[in-house]
């Protein structure tokens, strides 16, 4: 069971969270203006990362907030968690990739 550092509540066991998919997938501001390929990309196309993956979690059984995390999918190690709306951190201590 992973230990996840909620940016609002601090470290909590995985039991309290739900996974919410890849982070930084932005919904087009005006969906009607984008073409079918761009819309399909937003809806369906996701990375299948080996290594550091930016992903969303929700502290469902805590503060109920969504936030983002960088997790190494090969080791399950969380490099950092940060609030929704903040940019993906550029360089990280211990980021091996």
């Amino acid at each position, binding site marked *: *069971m992973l*230990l996840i550092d909620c940016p609002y509540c601090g470290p909590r066991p995985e039991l309290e969270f739900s996974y*919410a998919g890849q982070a930084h997938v932005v919904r087009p501001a005006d969906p009607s203006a984008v073409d079918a390929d761009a819309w399909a990309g937003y809806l369906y196309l996701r990375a299948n990362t080996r290594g550091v993956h930016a992903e*969303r979690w929700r502290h469902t059984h805590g503060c109920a907030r*969504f936030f983002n995390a960088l997790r190494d999918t090969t*080791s*399950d190690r969380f490099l950092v968690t940060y609030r*929704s*709306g903040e940019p993906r951190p550029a360089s990280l201590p211990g980021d091996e990739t």
Partner: protein
Amino acid sequence: MSPYRLASGGRIDRARQVGFTFDGRRYAGFAGDTLASALLANGVRLFGRSFKYHRPRGLLGAGSEEPNALVSVVRDAGRCTPNVRATQVEIYEGLVAESQNRWPVLAFDIMALNDLFAPLMPAAFYYKTFMWPRSAWHRWYEPVIRRAAGLGRAPSAPDPDRYAQRFAHCDVLVVGAGPAGLAAALAASASGARVMLCDEQPEPGGSLLDEHAATIDGQPAQRWLSVAIATLATRPNVTLLKRTTAFGYFPHNLVGLCERLTDHLAAPLTGTPRERLWQVRAREVVIATGAVERPLVFPGNDRPGVMLASAGSTYLHRYGVSVGSRIVVVTGCDAAYAAALDLHTAGATVALVADVRDTAAGAAPAAAREAGLEVVERATVLGTSGRLGLRSIELGSLVDGTILNRRTIACDALLMSGGYTPSVHLFSQSRGKLAWDAARQAFLPDRHAERERSAGACRGVDGLESVLADGAQAGVTAARAADRDAEWQPIRAAARDFNALGVPGALRQGGRQARSRAFVDFQNDVTTKDLALAAREGFVSIEHIKRYTTAGMATDQGKTSNMNALAIVADGLARPLPDVGLTTFRMPYTPVSFGALAGYDRGDLFDPVRTTPTHEWARRHGAVFEDVGQWKRARYFPRDGESMHLAVARECRAVRAACGIFDASTLGKIEVVGPDAAAFLSRMYVNDFASLAVGRCRYGILLRDDGFICDDGVIARVGYDRFHVTTTTGGAGRVLSLMEDYLQTEWPDLRAWLTSTTEQWAVVAVQGPKSREVLAPLITDVDLSAAALPHLAVRDGRICGVPMRLFRVSFTGELGFEVNVPADYGPSVWEAVCSAGRESGITPYGTETMHVLRAEKGYIIVGQETDGTVTPYDAGLGWAIGRNKADFVGKRSLARPAMHAADRRQLVGLSTVDPAVVLEEGAQVVEQPARAPPMRLIGHVTSSYSSAVLGRSIALALVEGGRSRTGQTLYVPMPHGDIPVTVTQPVFYDAEGTRLHA
């Protein structure tokens, strides 16, 4: 007194005799004995039959590594634990233990015939042989094989015991309370760090419990041990758990412990949990799990009486038991000389020490020779004899590939040692990487994945003083890593440190074909021949060989066998041992009961049950309930033994003719509040909410961004900035989560807040032409007239004096109201409405009736008419979409041309040509009758009922281009023929809606 129990020695309490039975026979032992030591003291050597060949088996070891002596411990029908290791069963007065896998009795087992056919039963014998006919496997072969090749039996009655679970946090978790673990715990806890120390044995000490010759800090080792335990016990920051196995290492330093609380007690106090599962989140972990001795692999090495040398020491020092009256020690490791010397000193006859190495030199052999023991070099064991226990062994010397000095030695015990294998199970489970250490001939912890460190024998450290120092250092390092100031105190120790280095693999036999088999994995009956066969048949990967031969796959997970198997495979493949590689270590380290894992989640607590405010009333009135998610909902209210069909027909007629009352409290409810609440809902739902007036409701449809229907419900504007949103019963959580997602991450600028109010409101639906006159006398401050309160209006007011939110809505097609009151008032308001409606014939109805009534009106149920591929257009709900909205969830996808294709499946009604025939829900729809499969399927039935009011069956279906097929005849193929149906509009009753607007 039996000749095997020595006059003195051991940690047993000789003043307290304990009686127990094994296979129905009474024996006596002492308090502190295990079942193994007590039976051994009574001269019992036969403990069980092997898994595949039913060979007689005795004890191999003295601890949790034991592969042979599996027994069932029986308290009663529900408390019967199979497959427990006799070496870990602490005896109590009245203990009942039974051997397994034998019939009729242990000493004479019919299935031992298997052993005669052993040459015909190589690796994968069952899969290779029992292939034809194919159908016979499940009916005949497998049941017979399962009965023959088995371990214990599961108990026949439910387990009456309680199992506890606990979460814990600590700075340092130390696994294993041997010398390294104790030193680590002492050093770490001295810093003030919160320390947990667990050990699988009934008392801490590990190998120190067998240690008699050593001194630590100038005191005898046993004295130091007592002081160490007492010191830890007085420290409030230390939790010491006995009889507790760390069985699994999970990500981010979560370690699973299983604590056994009552299995060793004759009469456990009622209510005491039998076991406790600990989930420990440790900042730092010290793994001090020691090492397990390896057997030697030679022909006949599984005969009862052949044991590990360390087990010989343990039985002597802890239980005062000699493993035999005439003992031979065969070893490839110096450490086994200690067992020979100690047994010799204790008065047992040690006939010979046979060293399999080329030279037996150094301190250990010298000490043995000095004590007058015969030591031979280059020894090999050629065979053993004795039907149910060892009588003699055949020994030879291997010189230049030839067997010399062949001789037979009478003995009733053989102690063997092939060296020690570090227990790296937990380290490996933590995803740490092992590396082969050529000097130590062992795989040792190398690259770490978690915040842990190994200490002592489990990382190849040898010698008491070094082990203590390594443990203390690990404790200090761990405490410092957990931000504590820890200091390292050297511990001085003097011990007879015989080297634990050994010789993995099979003993050389000089090219001679052995008559009997040499066992590698005792529990799964895997021999050297099986491994050689796998190599000959072309298996290369150790993981494949493991699965093909089943070596290391038994309940002991190959603790004693894996390294030997690996060495033999490497030999067979002519590859260096580290190149062949290790198989994966998996949890649990030793078996964990299902009870401990399930913990409190049994029976009523297995899954929460949600009940509505009127649940008790419904139960008293004979409701039949159905499960809807976690909810219990009243399905119908049979009277005087009515069938469901009759009850539902009566309830339907009552609602259409007079008035019905229905508990709709399970509907999901979300209060959406804020200046941007209307804007937010307009973006979420297909409908427009900016134009919705306060006091009015709208039927809302929620899509996902892919354009398909996700949920629906009535949304009421109860204030300028306040909406009361209802969802489907099953969709409540999903909808709230979806709304939160968009609100928090896509539109954080919108000022709107969401609160789940599902359980705050009791919802009493009153439906039918007489519902207004029933409710009117109870409500004084709301005008219920059609002019003042039209369809889809909402008002706050009071009913029976309590606060109420009143909706004029209908899921039946009749004049209807949904009375929302705070949940606690639900039962009294419900009963008040029932009393008020008695004269009008008010009838309680359930979900089945609700389904029929809504289907008569063609109202969809999300999840029944929709399946995640249905658009609002498909469902005939295109009218609900707000035309002038710039965006809403799903709008862009609805604009795709494919979403408007004429041949999409659309919601229609189906009328069977024979009105008495009720279609089956889920049945397929085809165009042509009397065809054989495969047929082109053009739709399926989503809802189907017998309608009492219409006097015929009705059905809803999704059919390709369905709306353009109105009037067509289609067919529903069933096993006994096609059912012709006519396509109709999906509304069967009051299509004009005059009743709804009454």
